[in-house]
């Protein structure tokens, strides 16, 4: 029992250090605050994969009562620690991702055309901004076929992560 508690404490201490590090990368004024628009990046680089909706909820939790546009570390730390301890917003496994692409490609051709990708990404789900769409296209589109060979695409991105 005591061991479990020790292990939890150690885990929490380690989480605190990780969170602090990630936070500091964006703390440009060295005053323990970050721009609210960077919080998503911080949370995601700590290993979480929230949807935009979940992100908004999280931000609401860490924002000031009167939103200032900045998030303070003192508020961010406990909330983020909980998220990590509870292993919330787990990343998506490769096979699930593949199946998602296959849903969009019911004919099982193995690819999505550029237009199809644009349509789905900008009209469905939590739509991409134009910038996000352009950036995804630049890496995903195979120039010869003008389509996304999604299996290869996933493999490439996943290798990149590691």
């Amino acid at each position, binding site marked *: 029992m005591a061991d479990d508690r020790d292990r939890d404490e150690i885990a929490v*201490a*380690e989480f605190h*250090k*990780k969170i602090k*590090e*990630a936070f*500091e*990368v*964006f703390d*440009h*004024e*060295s*005053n323990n605050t970050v721009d609210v628009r960077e919080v*998503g*990046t*911080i*949370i*995601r*680089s700590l290993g*979480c*994969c*929230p*949807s*935009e909706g979940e992100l908004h909820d999280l931000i609401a939790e860490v924002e000031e009562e009167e939103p200032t546009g900045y998030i303070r570390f003192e508020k961010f730390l406990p909330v983020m620690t909980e998220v990590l301890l509870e292993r919330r917003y787990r*990343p*998506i496994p490769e096979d*699930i*991702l593949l*199946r*998602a*692409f296959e*849903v*969009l490609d019911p004919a099982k051709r193995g690819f999505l055309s550029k237009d199809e990708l644009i349509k*789905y*990404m900008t009209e*469905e*789900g*939590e*739509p*991409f901004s134009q910038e*996000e769409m352009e*950036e*995804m296209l*630049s*890496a995903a589109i195979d120039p010869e076929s003008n389509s996304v060979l999604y299996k290869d695409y996933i493999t490439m*991105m996943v290798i*990149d*992560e*590691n």
Partner: protein
Amino acid sequence: MGSGTSTQHHFAFQNAEKAFRAAALIQRWYRRYVARLEMRRRCTWSIFQSIEYAGQQDQVKLHNFFSYLVDHFTPSSHNERDFLNRMFTEEQPPQASEMQNSGDYESIEVPDSYTGPRLAFPLLPDHATALVEAFRRKQRLHARYVLNLLHEARKHLVQLPNINRVSTCYSEEITVCGDLHGQLDDLIFIFYKNGLPSPERAYVFNGDFVDRGKDSVEILMVLFAFMLVYPKEFHLNRGNHEDHIVNLRYGFTKEVMHKYKIHGKKILKLLQDVFCWLPLATLVDEKVLILHGGVSDRTDLELLAKLDRHKIVSTMRYKTRKENKKQAEEKGNANQTGSAGRPSPWFLPQSRSLPSSPLRPSTHKTHRAGRSSSVPCGVPLDPKELSRRVRHSVDLELERCRQQAGFPAIKEKEEPSSSESEVDSDAEEPPQPTPEEWRQVVDILWSDPMAQEGCRANTVRGGGCYFGPNVTEQLLQKYNLQFLIRSHECKPEGYEFCHSRKVLTIFSASNYYEVGSNRGAYVKLGPDLTPHIMQFQANKATHTLTMRQRISRVEESALRALREKLFAHSSDILVEFKKHDKDETGLITLSDWAAAVESVLHLGLPWRMLRPQLVSSLTDNKLAYKSWLENLAKEKLSQQNIQSSLLETLYRNRSNLETIFRIIDSDHSGSISLDEFRHTWKLFSSHMNIDITDDCICDLARSIDFNKDGHIDINEFLEAFRLVEQSCSGADVSDCP
């Protein structure tokens, strides 16, 4: 039928919902991917910046280190004393008569076989344009023309005031460019994109034209050429790299000697003078102040306008006058009383953490609270005198640390302006700047803006200060200005506004750290003085890369640099690891790894973020540190003839060594004697915790003297070192050269 359509609808609805959810999943995954890329990009940037600034800090520390050494190292022989003295021999700003000799280009013949550009003076606009074109085609300008051009440039610069005044009513628009650092491609791109200089198109180049990049010479030639052709419209400000001592370390000296083997020395000598004649700042319409670094809370534009800028040969060395000798004497007497229990100077390895520890306030009221590290060097080379000056500089440093620790600044005594009256009879010595003048110039060439209010010493660079928004506001109000334009710092987008848009940083060297690392930018001002920023990236290759690929390339480069640094400190890091492994299991946690590495390198990097790129294999979530260090070494080590710790030390200090060698090799001949080498190494190692015996040093020296003539060619030494660090990984020792 009803049920048919409703089933259809049901399916359609289900499919739509599935598509919706699938799209949402993909978007969610993609956004996380992008966020992680962004984090990697920021970390990469931190790595480059922290290593770059640590390097700058190093150079300042190096000078202080030598002065401290002078104080504590007792020369055991006449030779050694001479040797030390020579290291501190003041390099005089060249006298007029000397200048005639250095600028003597007329005797240099240009062979008929020379196909490069030829210059005739006075220069015409076509000549300048032709010069740009010639350089674009990779031609080289003959030394005779280089000297001629520098000579003419100097004549022009001498007439200019310290603060150039420019008006937008003559040329309608003014383009301001920042650091170029020898990157000719960027300059050519700017002229291509924005247009060549002309009476209608004024330019201001804000310093740091040289060092680091490979075409510093060509950049200077182009800039000086246009300056001569359009004297009213083309303006240059001095940067902290327009400084012959900084050039020793950052590549410009090397470039000149490499491109101009015969006349390089002459060129460097003339350049040393030309640099100190560069104006310090430019003022547009009395409203926009353009200078290289920044300002401090003491910046005094009137003083800056009045001082003799030519006196400040280098911002790295503060030269004292003979009259300071008297002051030093007086202080020396006062010093006797309070020296007990004084903490050791900050730049020694063991006292690196000094600034954060509280210091007892000094009882010496006469101390000047200098903000920059300064090394007093004087012409009189009497050792006692030298050590008094060194103690003075050490005191300055202590005072600075005290200030940093939060103690109130000790009120300064005004430096007596009796400079003129104190001129010695034998002084053909030109007048020296006062400490205040020197500090004013250092401040504007080295300072960086910060977000917090206030003004504090710039410890990262080792010179100048960090200035806050209130300092900017104070200055703008005092002199009725609208905003500041400065450079000095690389920015990912090539520019950055801060202090409520009152300070604009403009940086024109794109891909500065690595291909794809950053854009360059320049800013245009019209009569309304609204800044219009133009960005660029002078490497077509990057345009075709995706964001992911760009970041990967830059990141790989940063990580390589970081691994080099880690290797260079292997011994210290191992010691720290062992502290975290009292049970000698050979394993440590990642948390301990991060703490240990930071405590040695002091780079302030997010180690946990970087961990996946630096540490690949873990046993049970712990790191087997010995093999990790060995792997680092394998990337670097090859030959085993030299003791590995010596190799490590040499490697860690290689840029310092090169600098030291070049300082010793004062005639730029490219070789130093075996004795000098031994002395250098001894001096160096006596303060670097190295157990290298004299014999070992002698062996090393002898093995490097390939032709056994008692002289070591600097290039050969470095080349030998490079050969040693290359290849041979895993190979037998006997296989290696």
